[in-house]
C-alpha cells in the first residue's frame, strides 16, 4: 500500500504546488517510488512547476473512468517520480472531485508506488477536505505573513470542525527569511494545541531562496525545476531534510 500525502493550504499562492513537487522529488531522490497527482480543480499547474507541457490525458479522464490509471501517468523527467496532470481547463462542478476518487485510488494503489502525493487547490473547501481524509499525512503550507497565518488557522479550524481530529496534520512554513520564521512552525504547534487541542506532530520551515526565482527565470522552451537546476540550494536541502525526518528519523540517508 502506498502512503498518501496531501498538500493543502488555507491561502492561495503560498507555494502548495511547489512544496508538493519539492517533497516528491526529495522522496524520489531518497529512493522511494513517488506519484504526484494534481487535484487542483481551480487551475492545475503542477506540470508547469515540473517543466512539462504536452500531455494527452488528465486526471479528469481518470475520474470519468474513460482512462485507466496507467494511461494518465507520465514520466516527470526525474527518476522514480511520475505524475498525473490536472485539468487544463478549470472545471466548475467541484463535486467532481469526490466523484470517483475511490475507484481511481484503488487503481493507483495497484501500481506499486511508495508514496502518492496529492496537490490540492487552495482554501477550506469540501472537495479538499474529503481528499484529505484519504491521506496518511496532511501538509498545510503557510507563509510568514499575517494574511496567510490567519487563513491557515481558519483552515485548520474548519477542517477539525467538519472532519475531526483523527488525521495527521503537519505544518510547513514557506518563504522563511529569518530564524524567527524558522521557529514559526513550532509556535503554530503550541498555539493550536493550546487553543484547539490539535496535535500537529511535525512542522518545519522552508527557507526563502533566490534559486527558486532563478529557476523560473528561463524561457518556456527549457523550463526546469529548481531541483534540476540547483540541487544543492538551501531550499532543496530543506526539502531533503523534511523527507528524511518523515521517512525514518533515526536513519541517516544519502541522497542519490
Amino acid at each position, binding site marked *: 500500500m502506498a502512503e498518501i500525502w496531501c498538500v493543502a493550504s488555507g491561502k492561495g499562492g503560498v507555494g502548495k504546488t511547489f512544496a508538493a513537487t519539492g517533497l516528491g522529488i526529495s522522496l524520489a531522490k531518497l529512493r522511494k517510488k513517488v506519484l504526484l497527482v494534481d487535484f487542483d480543480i481551480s487551475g492545475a499547474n503542477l506540470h508547469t512547476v515540473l517543466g512539462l507541457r504536452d500531455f494527452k490525458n488528465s486526471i479528469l479522464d481518470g475520474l470519468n473512468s474513460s482512462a485507466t490509471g496507467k494511461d494518465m501517468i507520465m514520466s516527470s523527467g526525474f527518476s522514480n517520480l511520475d505524475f498525473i496532470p490536472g485539468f487544463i481547463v478549470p472545471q466548475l462542478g467541484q463535486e467532481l472531485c469526490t466523484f470517483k476518487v475511490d475507484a481511481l485510488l484503488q487503481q493507483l494503489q495497484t501500481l506499486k508506488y511508495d508514496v502518492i502525493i496529492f496537490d490540492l487547490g487552495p482554501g477550506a473547501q469540501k472537495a479538499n477536505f474529503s481528499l484529505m481524509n484519504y491521506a496518511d499525512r496532511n501538509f498545510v503550507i503557510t507563509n*510568514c*505573513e*499575517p494574511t496567510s*497565518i*490567519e487563513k491557515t*488557522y*481558519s483552515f485548520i479550524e474548519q477542517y477539525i470542525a467538519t472532519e475531526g481530529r483523527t488525521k495527521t496534520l503537519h505544518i510547513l512554513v514557506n518563504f522563511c527569511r529569518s530564524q*524567527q520564521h524558522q*521557529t*514559526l512552525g*513550532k*509556535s*503554530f504547534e*503550541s*498555539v493550536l*494545541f*493550546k*487553543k484547539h*487541542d490539535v496535535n500537529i506532530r511535525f512542522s518545519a520551515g522552508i527557507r526563502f531562496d533566490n534559486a527558486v526565482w532563478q529557476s523560473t527565470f528561463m524561457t518556456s522552451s527549457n523550463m526546469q525545476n529548481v531541483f534540476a537546476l540547483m540541487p544543492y540550494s538551501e531550499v532543496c536541502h530543506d526539502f531533503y531534510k523534511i523527507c528524511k525526518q518523515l521517512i525514518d528519523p533515526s536513519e541517516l540517508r544519502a541522497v542519490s
Partner: protein
Amino acid sequence: MSTDSKNNYYEILEVANTATQHEITVAYEKAKRTYSAQNAALYSVFTEAEASALRDLIEEAYSVLSNQNYRNIYEKRLLSKSYSASDLSLDAVKKASTELFNENSLLTAAPVEVTENEKPSYEKNSDLETEIEACSNWDGDFLKKVREYKQYSLELLHEKTKVNPWYLSALERMEPQNLPAPVFVRGYVIQFAKTLGLNEKQVAESYMKNYKFKLEQQKTK
C-alpha cells in the same frame, strides 16, 4: 484548552511530568518566545490580553517547576488529587514550602546568633594600657600582644575585619613573603588597629616603617 481555565503547570509549558530541569528550562524559553507580543503566529488566534495572561501563566509555571522544593510539593499535591485548584497555585506552594522549612528548622538546633557590634570582654590591665598609649614603635609582636590582651581570636578578628586569617597571622609575624603588596598590607593594618580600638593612623605609619625595613632586608638576602 482555553486561557482562563487554570491548567496543570506541566501542560502550560508542554512538558512531561518526568521532564528534567534542563528540559523545563528549554520549554520555558520556547513558550516565552512563542507567546511574546512580537510573534506573528499569535495573529488572529489570541488577543493581546489573552497572550499576556498566557505569559503570566508561563512565568508562574516556570517559577514552580524550576524550583526543586516547589516542584516536589506541587507534584505531591497534583498526584494526590485531594487538593483544590487554589492549593496548586504558586502562592500556595510557596507558603507550603516556607512552612515546611520552618518545621524542619525547629528540629535542628537554633543557629548561634552573632550580633554585629559584640566585643569580647577583657580584664583591664593598667600597666599594659599605659604601654599601649605610649607606644610609638608598632610591630607584629606588639600587635599580637594587644590582640591577645583584648581577647580577640584570629577568627573573630577575621569576621570583623573581613581580612583572611592567614594574612592576619602573617601580619603579626611580619612575613612579607606571605603578604600582598605593601599598599594592601597597610589597609589590613588599619583594619586590624581600628577593630582593636587603637589609633589606626599612628599604628599603620609605624608598622609600615618596620615592615618596609623587613622587606628591604629580605630583598638583600
